[in-house]
């Protein structure tokens, strides 16, 4: 049975909203819970960490924790929303990158994302496995992950649209964003299993596949479905 989803998703879209002190405190607590949870996940593992351990370490009652995050999956979802938000804000700040060719922009986005989540590699690995279960809130087509997915797709769509307008690639439409999302997920799972020094095989795969994709797109055809 699905519990009602916590409000994390909407909140994540506007983390710096000009809410009152009450809301501010709530956001702080939410961030603190995530921090201690991530600590516990990395020391004990995602599956073996209990909500009781999280609440105790965060210095709140278990019931209070439940108000913030109904399940560990909600916590994971919140984690990814936060990371995505950081990623988008970073991209908006990176002025020189905005002028770079599309291949480099997309490379930078995925690479930055990997850098952000690299301190939590084990946790991300566990969550990725979990997300494969159809009943999971983390599943790509679950209702709970919708706002996260939409936020991501809109972001990528914008980056692609810019390149379309510049004539760098033919119109790829929404399909392009979907395809890139799939690719991004694929790269993260490759990265999770990459044992090469400095994870350089992921860098090579990312670079080569983006260049191949560009070549295919430029070769023509109608990609705008």
């Amino acid at each position, binding site marked *: 049975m699905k519990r009602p989803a916590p409000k994390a998703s909407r909140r994540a879209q506007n983390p710096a909203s000009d809410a009152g002190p009450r809301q501010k405190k709530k956001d702080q607590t939410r961030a603190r819970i995530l921090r201690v949870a991530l600590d516990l996940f990395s020391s004990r593992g995602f599956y073996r960490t209990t909500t009781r351990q999280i609440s105790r370490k965060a210095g709140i009652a278990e019931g209070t924790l439940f108000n913030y995050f109904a399940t560990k999956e909600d916590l994971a979802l919140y984690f990814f929303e936060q990371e995505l938000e950081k990623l988008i804000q970073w991209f908006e700040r990176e002025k020189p*990158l905005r002028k*770079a*060719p599309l*291949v*480099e922009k997309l*490379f*930078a986005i995925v*690479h930055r994302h990997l850098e952000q989540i690299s301190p939590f590699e084990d946790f991300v690995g566990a969550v990725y496995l979990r997300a494969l279960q159809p009943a999971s809130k983390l599943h790509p087509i679950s209702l709970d992950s919708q706002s996260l997915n939409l936020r991501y797709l809109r972001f990528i769509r914008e980056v692609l649209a810019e390149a379309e307008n510049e004539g760098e690639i033919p119109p790829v439409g929404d399909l392009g964003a979907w395809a890139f999302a799939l690719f991004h997920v694929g790269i993260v799972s490759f990265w999770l299993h990459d044992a*090469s*020094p*400095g*994870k*350089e*095989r992921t*860098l*090579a*795969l990312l*670079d*080569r596949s983006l*260049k*191949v994709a560009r*070549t*295919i797109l430029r070769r023509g055809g109608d990609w705008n479905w």
Partner: protein
Amino acid sequence: MSRLGASLTGSYLAYQFQNLILGPDEAEARKKMFQKKSSRRIRHELEELKGPVMKLGQILSMQGQALPPEVIEELAHLQARAPAMHPTLARAQFKGVLGRNPEEIFQSFEPEAFAAASLGQVHRAITRKGERVVVKIQYPAIRSAIENDFKLFRSATLPGQFSGHFPAEILDEMQTGFLRETDYQQEARNIEFFREELAPLAYMRLPKVFPEYSGDRVLTMSEVEGRSLDIFLKTNPSPQLRNLFGHHLVELYHFELRCVAAIHADPHPGNYLFCSDGTIGLVDFGCVKYFSPGFREIVQCFINRVWENGESESERMLRLLFGRKASLANPKARDMLTAAIELFQLIFPARRPGNTKVNFGDPEIITKMSQIFRKSLQSKLTNPEFVFASRAELGTYNLLHALRAKVDTADAKDRVDRFVEGCLVQLPNQPEKAGK
């Protein structure tokens, strides 16, 4: 795309190997099928693939007369350029190796590369202390790419291995050499070694390594000044200057063979930087060959012209060259030895007194050398130690040819002789005036 690349270069390699193995007539017929357009496509594909195939392209392009001119022209582009890593990728790889971004380490760092190396690219930077340096960054995962390519390469050359035209030892030597090139820490050691060993050659300038900013895939060195050969030649240098550089190059080659017992084996023109003051900058020590005692003995045989002392000495030399089984009774072996001696005598024509000036502008030397390479593959007489040594030799003569240098080779040899005998501590910048 990469599949397309693999199939294209696959057939290209097959063509090259056929060409080396086939006789000249059949090869001629096939050469005609080769259009400039296709060679350009091949270059693009080679650039995409990077790694060993590109290296192979470089080696082939140095074969001078062995290949049709339009192919050489295209392949020559490989020597200086390769597709760049974009700044974000270069930074990511840098951070993956040194743990910090370049701008956290250097006072300034140029995000765009100024030169491409086959296994990576080179950026300019300034250290916090204000030293001008170049930072060589390797393309990610090139090592495993080379290992994979060699697997492919080995299966592709199976017929050649079976027939004995392309022995496995040669492939081993090539693979070891190329893989060694991916280890920048080894390259740093090579630079230190050569800095010390080449110190007596006052006209050679070598980079200095900054170990604190280097790792196995990032190498930071001091910047070496000078112009690459093609740019240098465009400045219309005087014959005197060209001859002086020619003299230095012959001397350098012999100094490496006889005094250092190791050779800078990546002689493509981009690695030699010419300065108008007559000095030469030498960069890129990724491919260095350290010689075995056996090889040094071969060199000594040539220097002492042992073949003049009768058949038994020639026999000894032949065994040193091609192994215990080689014998003068084998006409092919005798042929090879004669050709090698002829080549040597082309470069060191006679003893003084007499005209000992060699005109390297004459293509004869390079033609001769290519013929010997071809012959050695055709007659299955090879020595793995020659793979990189001959690459260096042919590269040196190609440079000399491009310089159209006239060199008194006997004088260059004498200078090295005197150094070996300990009469000279340092080889001065100016050679003794010829004919004095």
